[in-house]
């Protein structure tokens, strides 16, 4: 997929995220919009995972540790052909398997997540098992910035470098906002790069909305042989919809009819610009 195709794909993903959240009247809007470009690159350019190879142990693994941004994951998985997209019209409805956090009931989802601070340890287990079996696969997780306050992550950070898990890559969706405020106000993270380096990880910063940067960074894994890789992806919460960007209330805000129409119009404008 070319850079332009990736850009157009992300516009489409954002439209769908908003469509299904609007339909469900529920969802984590801001974070889904901040994380979706990373998922776009992972699924369309980097990972060896598809509906066809999903039963094979050789496939790459992706565990969404920030499970609440499931709408972005569902939209990407539907686009990959894991399930019919119209299933998402049942999102968060009575008896629908498409609940508000990732569940293995949905093909393409590797682990049930939702409680924060769980994904990395599971991925570390995947990575150890892959090394033991001599499988050349890679294991990915995306974590939220607020999530890093969970102590369990730091247990897993220690372990991953202790076991030299260079087949493991954790990506921080660093939009710098969490439900009660900025990370700085709630629980300061910085200097997050130095902390991870001190924990034995190889660390890189990227613009989490720049497809070239995301691609070249993810294609250069592992950053150092014998070290797990940590990508600090600087993102914007609510990315793509100007009135949502960097605005706390869109953490799990649901647009009304007018807001939805305005968001779709703005995304259409972005599409037109890309095609110019």
């Amino acid at each position: 997929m070319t850079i332009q195709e990736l850009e157009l794909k992300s516009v489409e993903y954002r439209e769908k995220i908003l469509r299904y959240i609007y339909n469900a009247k529920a969802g984590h809007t801001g974070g889904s919009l901040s994380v979706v470009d990373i998922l776009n690159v992972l699924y369309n350019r980097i990972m060896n995972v598809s509906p066809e190879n999903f039963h094979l142990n050789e496939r790459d693994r992706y565990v969404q540790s920030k499970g609440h941004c499931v709408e972005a994951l569902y939209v990407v998985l539907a686009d990959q052909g894991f399930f019919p997209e119209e299933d998402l019209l049942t999102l968060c409805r009575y008896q629908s398997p498409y609940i508000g956090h990732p569940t293995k009931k949905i093909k393409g989802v590797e682990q049930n997540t939702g409680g924060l601070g769980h994904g990395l340890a599971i991925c570390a287990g995947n990575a150890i098992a892959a090394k033991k079996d001599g499988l050349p696969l890679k294991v990915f997780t995306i974590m939220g910035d607020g999530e890093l306050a969970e102590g369990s992550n730091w247990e897993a950070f220690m372990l991953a470098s202790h076991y030299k898990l260079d087949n493991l890559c954790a990506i921080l969706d660093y939009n710098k906002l969490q439900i009660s405020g900025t990370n700085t106000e709630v629980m300061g993270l910085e200097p997050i790069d130095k902390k991870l380096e001190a924990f034995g990880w190889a660390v890189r910063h990227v613009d989490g909305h720049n497809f070239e940067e995301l691609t070249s960074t993810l294609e250069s894994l592992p950053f150092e042989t014998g070290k797990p890789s940590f990508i600090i992806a600087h993102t914007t919460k609510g990315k793509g919809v100007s009135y949502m960007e960097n605005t706390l209330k869109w953490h799990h805000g649901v647009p009304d009819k007018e807001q939805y129409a305005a968001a779709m119009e703005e995304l259409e404008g972005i599409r037109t610009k890309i095609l110019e």
Partner: protein
Amino acid sequence: MATEVIKTAETANLEVFSATLQELAAHDRDILVVTSDSRGSGKLGPFGVKFPDQIIEVGIAEQNLVGVAAGLASMGKKAFAVSPACFLTARSLEQIKNDVAYSDNPVKLIGISAGVSYGALGTTHHSLHDYAVLRAINNITIIAPADNFETAEAIRQAAETESPVYIRFGKKGMPDNLSRQISEFRIGKGRVVREGGDLTFVATGEAVLPCVKAADLLEQTYNVRCKVISMHTIKPLDEALLFETAGNNQPIITVEEHSVNGGLGEAVASFLFQKGFRNSFKIVALPDEHTVSGSQTEIFEHYGISEKGLVQTALSLIQP
């Protein structure tokens, strides 16, 4: 007549666990043991020496222990996560609930030095809550073997089970087999280790042994014949055996090394009451109070989980 003396203090169930794992690991490279600096207390030193590629140390980090084990299990490994029961089922409870049970990653959770095995080390090291919290979590089997035989079989069968299992045992030497005849063990099926029609003890884990001793004494001294069930699987409960047992309308005493709240006793009572049984019924367990200090044996005696205490309880139900 029950005249055979129960031999005790031979081998701890913990040691049998370690030996059984070695036996399994020798033929199956997918058997992996994950420890939280608990290799020594889990008697896993010899395992680590023999199978260095099949033991994974995570350090003193129980949440990570369970999360990593879930990741291993999801890749097809038979992961045994070994940690003191007190930490395993409290500190990492959310990982058990989400990463193991809810995600259906078939980790084998091994709670060592369970109940009040740590004795005078105190409440921080006791696990009197584990049956209760795990009973309330969907998709996990709970097992507390009573003797060496049950321990070995529980480990062997758990290794082949494609769903999450929790097994707990203590440190004390236990008899090889509490039953004189029965050498069958099946997860989910209680073992009748003594037959008798006057009263039934339904017990689990290390609390079965004092029941057997009490049953033998009751028969010899009072001519009271007691049935003793080792209800090694607390969930799923062997309801058929309970149904059959309660049918004679004789007293039932449940005995466990656990809080009186939420354990075997309440599980049995709930089943029997809802089925309409109204047998005399008594739960012998640790009361809802700060646990008395002392060794495991002293704590057992203090709360009546002993030959003497159980004989008294039995007689009080038979001769009210």
